[in-house]
């Protein structure tokens, strides 16, 4: 089966259709909240599904997966931050905000990968779902720490006046940490995982048609909308500059390689599971991290991190990244 025919799965094609619609300036537009609703469904469905399987899986491996997810979530932003600071193309605070996105994950990319594996008939472990759930928060926390540290360093160098007192005492570390840990989509995914795991035996049966049968269709609609959003953001790529675009392509490769390594060697997953861990490493958040950065690092430019995460890295992963990470996973698996 050629690489191209791999791409001819509906989920990817709908993403491309959305992208195309924006490129030809069609007036195709989803209702305001439709993407949000679809993503609530998707998070709940994948959570219940994963939780149901985790309830029957090895708790030791699950714990290991959580630990490695935390490791990735904490490490990748630091790698990203250093890379960005080295390029000297963006302010250090911009670097902190952008880097945080890459420690976190994109549920849309993850689900596209699931659809990809499904259509290729490749099996995968359920543990990556729980990693998806836990990677959001550490990335936000590292982002906050990087920004705080940057601000302190800039203050010492006299290059910034001290930040004015917060009128509502809400920009403080503790209240921002609280937001990182109680983030809505994290809670929804963790909650659904838990419900899937603890629901009384038999009571899940009536839920399966809902979480299985319409899943792929909802995912297609979601990716259609995300294709439109990606295309809208990619137009700004000239504003962010070629170096930054390169970062948006290199960073997922780094994350993907790290993910393959962790999935294969550290967690001992098979081909499918390793690919999914790679996608977790490679993808950048565009749901939980952006609002957190808006609150915590108001000095950073939102259109910078949104363009990178949504306009560059997201389409790269969906079109090129996923088959590539699968290829890498196959390589290390064969080795």
């Amino acid at each position, binding site marked *: 089966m050629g690489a191209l025919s791999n791409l001819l799965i509906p989920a990817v094609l709908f993403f491309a259709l959305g992208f195309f619609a924006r490129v030809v300036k069609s007036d195709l537009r989803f209702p305001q909240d439709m993407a949000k609703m679809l993503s609530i469904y998707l998070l709940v469905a994948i959570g219940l599904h994963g939780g149901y399987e985790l309830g029957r899986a090895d708790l030791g491996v699950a714990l290991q997966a959580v630990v490695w997810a935390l490791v990735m979530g904490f490490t990748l932003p630091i790698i990203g931050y250093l890379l960005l600071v080295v390029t000297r193309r963006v302010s250090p605070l911009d670097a902190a905000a952008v880097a945080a996105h890459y420690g976190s994950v994109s549920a849309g990319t993850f689900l596209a990968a699931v659809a990809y594996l499904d259509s290729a008939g490749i099996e995968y472990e359920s543990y990556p779902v729980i990693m998806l759930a836990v990677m959001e928060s550490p990335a936000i926390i590292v982002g906050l720490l990087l920004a705080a540290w940057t601000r302190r360093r800039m203050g010492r160098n006299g290059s910034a006046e001290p930040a004015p007192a917060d009128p509502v005492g809400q920009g403080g570390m503790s209240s921002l940490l609280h937001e990182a840990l109680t983030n809505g989509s994290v809670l929804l995914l963790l909650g659904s995982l838990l419900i899937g795991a603890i629901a009384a035996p038999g009571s899940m049966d009536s839920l399966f048609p809902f979480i299985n049968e319409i899943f792929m269709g909802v995912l297609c609609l979601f990716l259609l909308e995300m294709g439109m959003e990606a295309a809208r953001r990619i137009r700004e790529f000239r504003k962010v500059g070629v170096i930054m675009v390169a970062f948006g392509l290199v960073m997922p490769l780094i994350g993907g390689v790290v993910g393959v390594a962790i999935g294969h060697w550290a967690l001992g997953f098979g081909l499918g599971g390793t690919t999914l861990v790679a996608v977790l490493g490679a993808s950048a958040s565009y749901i939980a991290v952006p*609002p957190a950065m808006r609150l915590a690092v108001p000095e950073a430019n939102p259109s910078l991190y949104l363009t990178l995460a949504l306009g560059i890295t997201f389409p790269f992963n969906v079109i090129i990244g996923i088959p590539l990470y699968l290829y890498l996973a196959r390589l290390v698996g064969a080795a």
Partner: protein
Amino acid sequence: MPALYPEKLVTIITTDVLETWLAKIVRKRGASGYTVVRARGAGSSGEQSSMLDIDTNIKFHVILPEERLAGMLEDLECMMKKGHHLTVFVSEVSVLHPEKYARPLE
């Protein structure tokens, strides 16, 4: 005709991420309430299409007596100094029952 009394109407346009902070300022500054409308728009920080959670604006309205205006504006000024993008404007309005706007929101 029922009598009308002058009040100040402060309108703030910004990302909806800041809504809870603005509501806190309203309470702190003793306004009697606030009203929020969902919005989209464009400005110096790019387009906000209101399609995703991450690019939705709000129009935040507060009616308050002239003497409480300064404090409110100072808090907003302070947020802007920290880097937040706020579009703020004040209008003159006339209301029917001024005592309603003197009672701070609990």
